[in-house]
């Protein structure tokens, strides 16, 4: 996963501090929160102090001084209540802030992901991208609601306990710290291993989710080829690997908390041993020593809790790292710093010596470029057909014109402005691509059409349908414009999906229209009718139609022929047919494939 590598080299502390930077709300009023946390922590050493005071001054050998004990308990009770209220205030403040910060972060990540280039939006990454917004932010939410709080409150607690210990007996305190010190080293070592183990477990988890998704989305093919059990077998192997990885991480984690336990036993033994050995010589009292034992447990208790929340912290840091990885991905194609406005009206398209290679199949570097030195000047309002055999690079060229990616070399100039200088939003409002397998949202036909231009009234949508000569078709839909299309539009037939996508593009009313085999699944009659309707619609727009059905090419002003990534022919239909090149070949194949053979023969 590339995006994990990006943030991958940063240490945990750096990640956290960048996390705070990205979510500035966390810092708001932090000093005040911290003050409450410290007061709250102070409330938690009340009991050890009460015990010490009670033993030393209340339960003397001479007898029990009830008055003293009563006063002591009243003060202690008050202190506990104040501490509790302060702690509550700290927790509520932090809770409100962190939920706000998480919300901000989520929205930022969503916005950023929407702006990423399509190259970063491959299907394999989709699950991962969704996970960034959901489960990764969730790890942070869990962290803030427990782990983060624990670090804050317990950190304060440790400081205060240490101070009280020092005030009781600095020598014993130093001994306690000294014995507990190696624990820090142990924790660090375990933590490193733990971090790696969790990273691995999480990537196995992502694999498992991907595998289950394939089982579901490919259900029809798997069924048709009786390959279901094989896919299920594969998924189970991944499930086992994920289990193994998590068990391994869990086993490492299982040693964290107990190591804190062992160290507290050792520290208590050391403190009691030394205290007893030294006796009253250093002014040590029985109460202070018992209080000390309590304090030692209190001192190491947070460590125990730290280790409990360390897993969680690891998870949160890893989640944050992945989020930063996404936020660090350059949005693409990058937004120009000083965008130039496009001229009004139909736009010209100049393709200057463009070369392009996909990087996703990157295992092999010497992959041939998919487009090589393609150049063409298309004047405003021209109707262009882009043809060529399958795999020749037509779709790729369309993607570059729409700036779903930038060329490796050369440039695309739209209306006199290089694409790299066109504002992304303006580009999208002026140029629309209709792909071969269009995506529809799980909603009504009307909602899908309206997506192109929010606020379009139903009457306007109906008008668009009429303009494309599709009234009959719409009438055949069970609920007309209100027909539900289903997930990905699967409740429509393939051709119907294409019709909806085409309508959607016409509603957007762009100045440049790129049709990538937009009618390949539509029957001939409908296609011809639509082609004519489109021709009317295309008046005053620049249109590039990619099609294997050369009826489109015939009525275009100009035909471009791509072969193996190179532009090999360029000219009007008649001229190219006459020239007898590749296009003439394609065209005669088309003519013979569409002749009914009765009239001519």
């Amino acid at each position: 996963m590339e995006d994990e590598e990006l943030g991958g080299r940063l240490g945990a502390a750096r990640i956290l501090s960048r996390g705070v930077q990205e979510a500035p709300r966390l810092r708001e009023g932090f000093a005040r929160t911290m003050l409450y946390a410290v007061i709250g922590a102070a409330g938690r050493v009340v009991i050890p102090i009460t015990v010490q005071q009670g033993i030393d001054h209340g339960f003397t050998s001479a007898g029990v001084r009830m008055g003293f004990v009563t006063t002591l308990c009243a003060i202690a009770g008050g202190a506990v209540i104040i501490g509790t209220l302060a702690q509550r205030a700290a927790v509520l403040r932090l809770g409100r802030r962190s939920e706000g910060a998480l919300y901000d972060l989520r929205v930022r990540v969503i916005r950023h992901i929407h702006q990423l280039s399509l190259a970063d939006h491959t299907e394999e990454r989709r699950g991962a991208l969704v996970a960034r917004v959901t489960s990764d932010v969730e790890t942070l939410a869990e962290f803030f609601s427990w782990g983060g709080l624990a670090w804050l409150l317990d950190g304060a607690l440790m400081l205060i306990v240490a101070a009280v210990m020092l005030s009781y007996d600095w020598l014993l305190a130093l001994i306690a710290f000294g014995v507990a010190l190696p624990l820090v080293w142990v924790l660090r070592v375990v933590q490193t291993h733990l971090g790696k183990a969790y990273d691995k477990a999480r990537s196995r988890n992502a694999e498992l989710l991907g595998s289950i998704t394939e089982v579901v989305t490919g259900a029809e093919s798997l069924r048709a080829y009786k390959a279901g059990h094989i896919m299920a077998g594969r998924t189970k192997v991944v499930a086992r690997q994920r289990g193994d990885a998590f068990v391994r991480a869990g086993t490492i984690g299982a040693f964290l908390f107990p190591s804190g336990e062992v160290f507290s036993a050792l520290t208590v033994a050391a403190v009691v041993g030394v205290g007893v050995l030294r006796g009253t010589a250093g002014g040590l009292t029985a109460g202070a020593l018992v209080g000390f034992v309590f304090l030692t447990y209190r001192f190491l208790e947070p460590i125990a809790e730290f280790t409990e929340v360390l897993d969680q912290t690891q998870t949160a840091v890893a989640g944050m790292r992945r989020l930063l990885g996404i936020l660090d991905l350059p949005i693409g194609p990058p937004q120009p710093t000083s965008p130039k406005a496009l001229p009004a009206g139909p736009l010209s398209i100049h393709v200057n010596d463009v070369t392009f290679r996909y990087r996703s199949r990157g295992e092999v570097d010497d992959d041939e470029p998919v487009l090589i030195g393609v150049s063409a000047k298309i004047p405003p309002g021209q109707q262009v057909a882009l043809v060529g055999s399958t795999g020749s690079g037509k779709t790729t060229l369309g993607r570059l014109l729409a700036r779903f990616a930038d060329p490796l070399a050369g440039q695309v100039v739209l209306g006199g402005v290089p694409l790299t200088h066109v504002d992304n939003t303006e580009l999208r409002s002026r140029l629309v691509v209709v792909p071969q397998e269009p995506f529809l949202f799980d909603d009504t036909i009307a909602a899908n059409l309206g997506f192109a231009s929010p606020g379009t009234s139903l009457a306007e949508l109906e008008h668009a349908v009429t303009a494309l000569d599709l009234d009959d078709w719409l009438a055949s839909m069970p609920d007309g414009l209100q027909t539900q299309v289903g997930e990905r539009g699967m409740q429509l037939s393939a051709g119907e999906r294409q019709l909806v996508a085409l309508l959607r593009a016409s509603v957007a009313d762009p100045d440049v229209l790129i049709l990538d085999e937009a009618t390949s699944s539509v029957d001939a009659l409908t296609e011809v009718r639509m082609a004519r309707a489109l021709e009317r619609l295309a008046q005053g727009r620049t249109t590039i139609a990619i099609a294997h059905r050369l009826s489109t090419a015939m009525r275009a002003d100009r035909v471009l022929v791509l072969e193996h990534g190179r532009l090999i022919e360029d000219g009007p239909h008649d001229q190219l047919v006459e020239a007898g090149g590749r296009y003439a070949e394609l065209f005669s194949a088309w003519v013979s494939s569409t002749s009914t053979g009765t009239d001519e023969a």
Partner: protein
Amino acid sequence: MSGGNQASTRARRDRWRSAALLIRDLVRIHPRPFFIAVSGSSVFALCTVASAVVLRWIIDHVIDPRLRQGTVAVGTVVIGLGLVIAVGVIRAAGVVVRRTWAGIAHWRIAETLTGQVVDRLVAQPVSWYQRRPSGDLAARGGVDVDASVDVLSPLPFATGVVLLVFVSSMWMLLIDVPLGLFAVAIFPVLIAINITYQHRVDRHYTAAQGHLGDLSAAVHESFEGVQVVKAFGAEARETERLSVIAGRLRESRTSAVLLKGSFDALLDSIPALANVALVLLGAYRIRSGDITIGDLASMIYMFTLLVFPLRLIGFALSALPHSLAGWNRVREVLDEPLEADPELGVAVAADGVGVAFAGVSYEFEAGRAVLSGVDVSVVRGGTTALVGTTGSGKTTLLRLAAGLIGPSSGTVSTVPGTRTIVLQEAFLLGASLRDNIAFGGDFGDDEIWTALDTAEGRDFVEDLPRQLDTEVGERGVSLSGGQRQRVALARALVRRPALLLMDDTTSALDPSTEARVVARLRAALTDATVLMVASRPSTIALADQVVFLNDTTIEATGTHIELLATNDTYRSIMEAFELDRSDPDAVGAPVIGPGSVTGGAT
């Protein structure tokens, strides 16, 4: 009022019951590691009480004698310290055992459940999937399984805590009955507060869980349609829409967190206040000589130690609703009876017949027939073209023939032997080309290359640096449209089918490639019955027979020539391109006037 109360009591009781059932069902899957974890937790609980006993002994026999009376035997000190360390180490060992085996139980059970869900998913026929959103189904095998086993992680610890509460209560009562009674009375209070809190906070967590589900679904769809989102410059709009859902999530989360903060403070302060009270009460008991300072100190110590474990009961409870919801969703998949496999309903066709439909109707939703009264038979060993307008039901007819869906009425019969279908939109796995063509079958490379030859795919595969080992990316994203179609075709051909169903599988090919594919298919599949959805007259003309589908039923069958001569609608479709060529401006020419697309020009 009281009726409502009763109902809510019953609902609560039902919830406890289903929680108990959930735990039983889960633990049953892998009981061993779970019970090892529980015993580790018990060791921990017993040692916790033991450490309080040791502390008392040290105060009374080491600290007090030494610091108040001045002397203590070295042996006593050594024994005391040894005990502290020994108990600490055993207690830690208990934790290691508990955590390790709790993890094993958790993940092994999750693994088994995922396996069961996946097995179930692949066992259900296509018709079952049609009514269910795919994201929801995928979640059942993934996050829902994880949610249901989440209840297990705190469970061994919680069991240990119950033991701890019991043993420590006994022990405190043994030390001193009045003080013990006071201390023990606090436990139920703490547990009651915990439960009340859980009850109140559940509402917010459940709401948050729902919002989170909505958010994931919406985010998933929005990212899936990112090309459309970008194409229409709707990024900002989409972000806005999603942030509204995120805002709802934030609200219920915040309410939960605030509630939790208040209860946490309450739950922390009660043991602390109880401890203060213990000091006061203890003072009387010490004065009357009933207990020692060690007794009192160790009781206070015990109480301090209990705070965190008691919270765990809360955590275990808080995992419950979440787990129950996940478990119910998992069970829905596991318990739902297998839908009858439509494939079993496909009969064997009579001799000489390749595919036959007898009185077949199909409706996706009641009352709206997509196909009705389809009666047609296709010759065995021949090629039949299926022609029809957009949305006329061609894909549906092929899926019926493939046994992927079953007819609402009527019967479908086909030639015996291997049946394969090439779907209109090729589905490719995120795997190598070889795996995508073999698709679970056991085929050698030469068989795969032969199939590719017939599908006209050899050239492009040979051009790839890694040839058959090329990874195509999820859904085959790194291939062009035409390349994907040919891989899907090769997948069908490598199986040497007796019946090959092709759904417009050459739509993304240029005419000359298509012509070559069809020619090769005819040469290679001499015995097979081929039923193909086709749109180009040349391809159709090659077929032995044409079936013309219009207006939910078969309008005509015969050879291409016959249909051209006898059926006007058919003719108008076939000649559409030709007519368009000869007279590009013949808009609205009578034959292809409106109405002919859906209604028949009878």
